[in-house]
């Protein structure tokens, strides 16, 4: 198989773009505005209704999976360069992309195997 790095970089870029465009608003609402009562949070049945749409499921899958791969790629290089852990390069790569894959699998399972 030809080197996979270009593909990993594409995932990194896609994830970074998703995180940049969508995480600020989602994080602000879900992590701060709703718990602190600044804004009224959506009711459970409203969210359930949204989740029923396949588009929402696809959206959530992208929202979770792509940023995880963004983190995996970036964090791997940060450990390698920043902490100069060159001798552990295979282990780091496996842990990073492995975690991203696990998160992706979990998201896929929750969004499509559970009705």
């Amino acid at each position, binding site marked *: 198989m030809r080197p996979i790095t270009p593909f990993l970089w594409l995932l990194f*870029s896609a*994830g*970074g*773009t998703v*995180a*940049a*465009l*969508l*995480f*600020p*608003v*989602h*994080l*602000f*609402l*879900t*992590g*701060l505005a*709703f*718990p*602190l009562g600044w*804004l*009224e*949070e*959506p*009711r*459970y049945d*409203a*969210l*359930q*209704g*949204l*989740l029923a749409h396949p588009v929402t499921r696809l959206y*959530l899958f992208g*929202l*979770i*999976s792509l*940023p*995880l791969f*963004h*983190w*995996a790629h*970036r*964090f791997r*290089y*940060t450990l390698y360069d*920043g*902490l*100069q852990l060159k001798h552990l390069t295979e282990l780091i790569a496996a842990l990073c992309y492995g975690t991203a894959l696990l*998160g992706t699998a*979990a*998201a896929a399972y*929750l*969004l499509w195997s*559970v009705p």
Partner: protein
Amino acid sequence: MSAGPDYTLYHPRWYRRRVSVWWWLQNRAYTGFVLRELTSVFVAFFALVSLWQVRALVQGPDAYAAFLARLGTPLFLVLHGVAFLFVLFHAVTWFNLAPKALVVRLRGKRVPDRVIVGTNYAAWLLLSAAVAVILLRG
């Protein structure tokens, strides 16, 4: 007359400086770079929170209520506060650097960087507004 690799490697009196493991503290630009890279940790954090949210949602109203309660605890509020700052830092640095990779040529002329950056910020605003409307209406 070309120097083979051995010539450089074994020259004993050239002084080779070691790069310290604290290289990234040596100047502001390097430190800013490492902080930018560390934003990815908070990106992963929120991705996992979102995964957790989906799981709670799927498990039922009680599980979801418990999830919401957890998000309201001081620990998570602080985590999210810090994460929000890092995610903002990620977004701003990402949009500002986008034109470096995305060179668009229209009719032979390169589209100016500020147009690419502006388009990114506009998309950010639009999408954030759309998400907010969807979540606040329900």
